[in-house]
């Protein structure tokens, strides 16, 4: 085993050396151009993909070269168990990937940590461990596909990503990542056997191997279905999104309308005597639209930064403040000289009192945590608490300064605040102007529109169908779309002046994919529901939409899958017990289980 391990290292040593040098130089270059350690996840994602591709490419070059029967015979036909042969290959790939991917990043981190004043946190060290683990997972998936009957086996890679790829704490992510890596290692290790064509032995091994395959196939079928459905609808000219004139009274028209038009649409059915007057005024006003676009807040030791600023630049003092997740306060640095410029804690410059959550820096240099709004007094170099939310309440949009007010949207309220101009302080205290409680819960809110009238406010809430994509999952809310318009008078008293139902223009088939496999649809949302603690719309395992056609489609899918499985199994040599396991899987999981059956149980 040791010889095989070193043999594989020697095989790729020059390539590894070139890749190491290229990676190190590229990282150095990028680190000079921008601070790699504080980049957003969107900027980091291409790099992660490159490292995943490197792991996959290594697997194809290494294990793929043994796929040919004569080469496979040379590898396997020796006095070593296949498990030890696999261990030698896997360990050599781990060493190579560590050299090419982990080591350059570690050198960069150590250099930055010990030679500069830039912020380097524990999460950065853990991040490179995770990146190595992901590259190794890609290698495992590639190796599994190389030694499996079908190269479609590569889809097993998707399932562990459901578990491991989340914008959560790198510490909390250690367990899921290790589980995902262990899962893939087990599957790949079991696929290393002399007879690659043979069915998997043991029901437990079969289940552990089949589940990621089924999840991967489910995700693949979802993507394919969406593509086929949308492109088919476009071709037939019936796609509601692919038209300049969406159906009147529908959600798409409401979403595309200007804010003033949107409020007017809501007022059209109003029985309030002032409605006509308001509708006449609206074109002259410039209403504001505010949407709960803040899907998540950063969490401590997060895997990567969000696409939101977590620091600010003090021009007057030439200090760049960057938030440290280790110390939970800002660390100052002169961007030109690189000299350290102290800390900025909750009590201001020089104070080491930590924040209770990782803040976001707003456009106006306010600091926003999920539950509080702070103002930075740049002159005094202090931080003032401006607003604290109730328990279980958190911001769902960035604060907006319009109409001379500070408008805040939370998961429970829309709040309008005024600054108390009478106060002498640089950061004026906030005084409540009015607030509206959201009637239906925040997860339904599509957007709100506000128009300031002479004698009050018109506020429109549109509750959409809640389609949103987070990670691999698409979420759909049960409630049909509707609109509510409220009038808030000068005293801050609110009254509903109009409500209307909005037609959901998108076909039911467009809105959800659960009918392809209801249990797997729920299964794919589980990791996000459990792990993603930074989400402002807490992940909910929503009920299935009450659309008869989806139930019929779902039932048909299960029946067809089970029937096809029954026919397929007749041509195989599986035991009766195993046949039952497969039939139950197909009856429960539908199409993905059937596809995995076709891949794992060859017919005679």
């Amino acid at each position, binding site marked *: 085993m040791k010889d095989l391990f070193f043999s594989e290292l020697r095989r790729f040593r020059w390539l590894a050396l070139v890749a190491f040098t290229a990676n190190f130089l590229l990282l150095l270059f990028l680190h000079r151009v921008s601070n790699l350690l504080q980049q957003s996840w969107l900027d980091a994602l291409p790099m992660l993909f490159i490292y995943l591709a490197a792991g996959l490419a290594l697997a194809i070059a290494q294990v793929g070269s043994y796929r040919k029967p004569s080469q496979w015979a040379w590898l396997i036909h*020796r006095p070593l168990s296949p498990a030890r042969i696999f261990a030698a290959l896997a360990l050599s790939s781990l060493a190579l990937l560590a050299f090419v991917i982990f080591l350059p990043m570690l050198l960069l981190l150590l250099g930055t940590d010990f030679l500069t004043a830039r912020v380097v946190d524990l999460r950065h060290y853990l991040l490179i461990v995770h990146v190595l683990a992901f590259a190794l997972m890609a290698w495992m998936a590639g190796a599994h596909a190389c030694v499996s009957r079908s190269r479609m086996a590569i889809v097993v890679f998707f399932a562990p990503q459901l578990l491991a790829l989340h914008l959560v704490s790198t510490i909390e992510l250690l367990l899921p990542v290790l589980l995902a890596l262990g899962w893939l290692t087990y599957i790949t290790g079991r696929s290393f056997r*002399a*007879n690659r064509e*043979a069915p998997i032995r043991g029901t437990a091994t079969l289940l552990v191997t089949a589940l990621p395959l089924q999840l991967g196939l489910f995700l693949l079928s979802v993507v394919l279905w969406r593509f086929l459905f949308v492109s088919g609808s476009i071709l037939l000219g019936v796609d509601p999104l692919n038209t300049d004139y969406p159906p009147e009274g529908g959600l798409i028209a409401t979403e595309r309308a200007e804010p003033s038009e949107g409020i007017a649409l809501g007022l059209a059915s109003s029985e309030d005597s002032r409605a006509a007057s308001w509708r006449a005024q609206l074109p002259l006003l410039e209403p504001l639209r505010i949407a709960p676009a803040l899907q998540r807040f950063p969490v401590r030791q997060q895997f990567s930064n969000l696409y939101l600023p977590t620091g600010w630049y003090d021009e007057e003092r030439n200090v760049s403040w960057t938030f440290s997740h280790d110390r939970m306060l800002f660390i100052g640095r002169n961007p030109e000289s690189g000299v350290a410029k102290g800390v900025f804690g909750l009590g201001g410059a020089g104070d080491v009192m930590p924040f209770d959550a990782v803040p976001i820096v707003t456009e106006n240099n306010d600091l926003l945590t999920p539950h509080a709004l702070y103002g930075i007094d740049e002159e005094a170099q202090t931080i003032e608490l401006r607003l604290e939310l109730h328990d279980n309440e958190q911001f769902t949009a960035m604060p907006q300064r319009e109409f001379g007010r500070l408008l805040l949207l939370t998961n429970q309220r829309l709040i309008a605040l005024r600054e108390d101009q009478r106060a002498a302080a640089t950061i004026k205290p906030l005084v409540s102007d009015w607030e509206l409680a959201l009637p239906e819960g925040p997860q339904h809110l599509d957007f709100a529109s506000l128009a300031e009238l002479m004698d009050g406010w018109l506020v429109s809430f549109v509750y959409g169908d809640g389609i949103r994509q987070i990670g691999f999952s698409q979420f759909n809310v049960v409630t049909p779309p509707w609109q509510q318009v409220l009038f808030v008078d000068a005293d801050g008293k609110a009254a509903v002046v109009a409500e209307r139902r909005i037609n959901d223009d998108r076909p039911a088939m467009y809105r959800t994919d659960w009918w392809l496999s209801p249990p797997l649809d729920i299964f794919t949302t589980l990791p996000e529901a459990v792990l993603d603690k930074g989400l402002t719309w807490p992940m909910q395992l929503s009920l299935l939409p009450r659309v008869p056609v989806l139930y019929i489609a779902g039932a048909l899918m299960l029946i067809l899958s089970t029937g096809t499985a029954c026919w397929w199994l007749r041509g195989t040599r599986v035991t009766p017990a195993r046949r039952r396991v497969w039939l139950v899987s197909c009856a429960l999981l539908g199409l993905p289980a059937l596809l995995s059956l076709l891949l794992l149980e060859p017919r005679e």
Partner: protein
Amino acid sequence: MSTALEVVPRRAPSTPAASRYVIETEGLTLRYGRKLALKGLDLRIPQGRIHAIVGANGAGKTSLFRILLGFQSPSGGRARILGRDCDGLNEHDRARIGFVNEEHSLPAWLRVSDVVAMQRRLYPQWNEARYRGIVGHFDVGPEQRVRELSRGERAGVNLAIAMAQSPELLILDEPTLGLDVVAKRAFLEAVLTSVEDADCTVIYCSHQMEEIERLADNLIVMECGELMHMSPPDEFCERVTLWVAEFPFLASGAEYLPGVLQVQRIDGLFHFIVLDQDESFGKQLEDKGARRAWQGPVDLDRAVNAFLTRNHARPLPNDGGAQ
């Protein structure tokens, strides 16, 4: 008039102790879709000596080896190698079986000495003298990289490594394919000398009859996934005989006589290669109008060739524009 040729497989003399067989198959069947690669193959290869397996492409030789080495499961029947079920071979069993295939797969990025060192550590029963003895037939330096070796040199190193592992059974699957005459000769000499030295059974698969003639103690003929013949090569040659006949006219119908494997017209004479026919065949030829008929010598190459092509289109005796 047509006569079905009936080939009765002849088997090696039965041996009572099952352990004396290195390879045993019973009703071994392998199906690729609708095609049967092996059709209920019953084969028992006794321990010791060199056993040659011959057969046309698609006869099932490589499929048989894949099953024997546990790389493929049969569709039916069972196969045992060195007394072990083929689908349950472990690392200890594999240490007892050497395998050399036509591609001579060796890690191209290593030096010969590294490959040898690696194998030496893997096989406790490694025989260094045997390795040196065999590799000495080839002009291979230990510091050469495998990728720098010619095909013949790679074959030599591969054989030397396989033999130095002191296997009880050595399977050589078309090992001389693509080798030049010199390399082939060196390879065959190496096989012969090493088998004489070692207590090893060799299964040798090849299309080269001169190699078989030179090496094999036992000849196994496979066709379309079935065992057609198994005996020492001499016995096979005794079954196959050549009759030369002189006919005054064409289309005598003699090619349809029982046992005729092949008919060729050479220099105006008809050459009949026949199976399992005695002296009376000459009389049958004369009955078909031959002026005279006599028996001639037939070598293994021609005999096997005729045997394997008997079901193909019969060559017409009047081919070639003769009168």
